[in-house]
């Protein structure tokens, strides 16, 4: 990308210009190297937004709840960014992104920016670019950023890396309680929501949850709210809960800890992805891996040994260094 075009994007992001912000997000999604330059340029202007993650099984009502919460934040004059992630089809590489349907009431409010994203093969409930997209929205002046994960009901703990506050949304009758517990999602919840409280089993689900959740190390216990997101009922409780969680974090010094933990987690992920991609690219270019074909089929070289061979070839310093420390 020409440096002039990059300047225009950086400038547009900082001014909160929706067209430029939207394009910068696409760059971050499609082109990690140019994307990282943009993010680095705007990063000094980030750090103001309260990032709130929403996870839980599909159909629980995450998008509807986020849609209702947008209105509450707007009523307080807060600028709102939304990132909603849906899965990429492993067969076609395409995706249908439908979360926006439930948030349309604020689709034309200039204080709201909603972006749908596909996972593009990334596991953990978010896409590779999600962290950077959050930084762009933050730099564009959003006061609160609501992030909706895929909602596979699987281990979507990635949201922990990015959110100051994690809201786990469940609904009665989905039979996901056990799944959710197995997936370790309850442990990451700062706030629990039993949505679809118009459903007869809602009280049962809420009681079951109250019994299952454990007091955290810091002595806090995540509150459980019941909502009917489609009617906006009970949503103000969740809204207050989110704000209170943010205030408490700041008061107790937990905010900085989350920011630092997020920083480290993002760095770790990026190193893994960057270095893996670069080594694999280089290995592919040289045909290094294909050269192992005979040895692999003859079972002379295990996959692990092959990985070490690639690392030894393309990043030998790393192995030398860890050898020195052994």
């Amino acid at each position: 990308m020409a440096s002039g075009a990059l300047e225009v994007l950086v400038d547009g992001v900082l001014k909160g210009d929706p067209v430029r912000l939207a394009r910068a997000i696409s760059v971050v999604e499609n082109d990690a190297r140019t994307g990282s330059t943009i993010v680095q340029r705007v990063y000094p202007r980030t750090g103001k937004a309260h990032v709130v993650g929403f996870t839980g099984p599909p159909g629980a009502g995450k998008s509807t709840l986020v849609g209702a919460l947008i209105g509450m934040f707007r009523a307080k004059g807060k600028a709102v960014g939304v990132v909603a992630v849906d899965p990429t089809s492993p067969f076609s590489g395409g995706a249908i992104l439908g979360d926006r349907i439930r948030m349309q009431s604020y689709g034309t409010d200039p204080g709201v920016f909603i972006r749908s994203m596909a996972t593009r093969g990334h596991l953990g409930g978010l896409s590779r670019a999600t962290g950077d997209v959050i930084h762009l929205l933050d730099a564009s002046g959003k006061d609160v950023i609501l992030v909706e994960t895929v909602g596979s009901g699987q281990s979507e703990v990635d949201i922990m890396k990015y959110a100051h506050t994690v809201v786990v949304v469940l609904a009665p009758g989905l039979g996901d309680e056990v799944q959710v517990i197995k997936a370790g999602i309850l442990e990451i919840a700062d706030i629990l929501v039993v949505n679809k409280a118009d459903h007869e089993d809602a009280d049962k689900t809420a009681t079951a949850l109250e019994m299952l959740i454990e007091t955290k190390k810091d002595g806090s216990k995540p509150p459980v709210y019941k909502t009917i997101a489609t009617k906006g009922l009970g949503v103000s409780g969740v809204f207050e809960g989110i704000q209170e969680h943010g205030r408490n974090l700041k008061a107790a010094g937990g905010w900085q800890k989350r920011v630092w933990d997020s920083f480290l987690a993002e760095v770790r992920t990026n190193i893994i992805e960057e270095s893996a991609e670069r080594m694999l690219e280089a290995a592919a270019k040289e045909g290094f891996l294909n050269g192992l074909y005979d040895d692999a089929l003859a079972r002379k070289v295990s996959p692990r040994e092959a990985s070490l061979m690639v690392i030894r070839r393309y990043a030998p310093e790393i192995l030398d260094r860890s050898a020195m420390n052994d």
Partner: protein
Amino acid sequence: MTSDSIGAERKVRVLVAKPGLDGHDRGAKVVARALRDAGMEVIYTGLHQTPEQIAEAAVQEDVDVVGLSVLSGAHTTLVPRVIKLVKEKGKEDVIFLVGGIIPPEDVAALKEQGVAEVFGPGSNTEKIAEFIKQKLGELAN
């Protein structure tokens, strides 16, 4: 932008929207699924969208293509309005497609107003995907 990207190729993004008041979106959903199956990311916004909502979604989602499904006969007002709003917002290079029952005499008028192609009911969905890929190829050159 693609040449130096790591791993990911640039995905085509399409907004499929249904302006107007008529209440069924079977056709729009069929198209959305077909485009997904052709490897595209389809932002589906459902029924009863105002032109303002569609234009804003096109901007925020940074789509390459806006597909408008119209059945109500309101194409003569709604479609040009969406196109005008998207341009006013400063978003360029968008391909506009229209699906639905459009009288032949109106097709030419829509094309004059910036619609790249009109697909009638029962159009081969693979053709739509092909058309998009071909058009984007032209734009890139």
